[in-house]
């Protein structure tokens, strides 16, 4: 039987959750025996070519490209896991949700203390993904099957969840593995 496939992506996140995946240490060898990594920054596969059992997504949705990637994952994966606080509640990027978008862009490109922008241009090229009005948790954009919060979620929690899923067992995280910080 072919190994189940796992895809991962980082949207509006810092890759810290991906670091936490790698933080399962030598268990990553066992994981490589159990699953095959498909589209993921870990192996640089860019496009879905096969159906995946699990999609693990770090980061919230802050621009239209994030939304497209997320919808692509929903289409191609049986189960979606939102990994980390940015994915589950917006996280640090969502701090901009308290400031109107126009003010955010003005601060970043016009008035910030380190800004050098003589043309007073705010980037608006069609090549650049359009920024959303605010940062959204993933489950407010597509259906998410499993949430694993944490900044980042402990490597043990990621391991426990994956092992439970692969063995069709209920997920029962012991105290300390479910955390928001």
């Amino acid at each position: 039987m072919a190994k189940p496939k796992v895809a991962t992506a980082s949207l509006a996140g810092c890759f810290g959750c991906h670091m936490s995946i790698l933080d399962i240490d030598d268990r990553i060898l066992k994981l490589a025996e159990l699953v095959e990594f498909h589209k993921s920054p870990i192996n640089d596969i860019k496009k879905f070519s096969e159906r995946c059992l699990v999609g693990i997504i770090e980061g919230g949705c802050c621009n239209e490209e994030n939304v497209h990637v997320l919808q692509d994952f929903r289409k191609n994966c049986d189960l979606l896991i939102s990994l980390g606080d940015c994915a589950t509640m917006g996280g640090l990027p969502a701090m901009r949700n308290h400031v109107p978008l126009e003010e955010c862009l003005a601060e970043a490109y016009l008035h910030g203390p380190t800004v050098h922008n003589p043309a007073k241009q705010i980037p608006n090229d069609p090549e650049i993904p359009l920024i959303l009005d605010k940062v959204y948790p993933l489950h407010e954009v597509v259906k998410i099957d499993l949430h694993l919060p944490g900044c980042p979620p402990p490597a043990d929690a990621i391991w426990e969840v994956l092992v439970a899923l692969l063995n069709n067992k209920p997920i029962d995280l012991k105290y300390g593995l479910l955390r928001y910080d």
Partner: protein
Amino acid sequence: MSDFTFTIDGVEVPANKGQTILEAADAAGIYIPRLCWARDLAPGGHCRVCTVLVNGRPQSACTHPAGPKMVVEHDTPEIRAWRKNVVEMLFVEGNHYCMFCEKSGNCELQAMGYRLGITTPKYPYMFPQRAVDATHPDVMVDHNRCIACGRCVRASRDLDGKNVFQFVQRGHHVRVAVNAEGGLGRTNLSAADKAAQLCPVGAILVKRVGYAVPVGRRLYDVKPIGSDIEAKRAATPSGK
């Protein structure tokens, strides 16, 4: 000797006249989750996390007096779901960024989320606009994290005798305000006041003491909230 007994989920619990359900449960080593309640403060009944069914009717265990032969339901799937919903609502209606909050690990709201197994709230986040008041030299108020439990209001009024904090507005607009124009710095609050100490979340913080305890050794890093109360039950031989 106790004055009478009543039952919580079928377990016989002794109680004295004047005791609330929550106090009697605590003494018997049964932890009923709560957020606005604090020892030494008059119960407020604000947060509804301690909701139980008393003879079939929902009541807040922190305000409802225990009575002879009362039948209390507490740890049922339905009541657990209510509590979870209430705590989830507290998370979405404020701005709770645990990842940089200095109360993280010692926060009762966060610990309640862990205890109730909340991975993420089912409600949409509201991301409200809330202010930070840093006008006081030793204490700050971050309204982003306030859950309107009213501990500071009761502590300042009843324990400190100062009335520094008060609720203003109503319904879901309710928020805590201070009794001086110009902010907390204009009040007579001191960092040693109970009102500055009893906040269950990171809304009222004494300045310059944050992050003193490393991750792993904070209050709720190892044991769930309420386990101190439950330990009492495990220690008594009759407790089963």
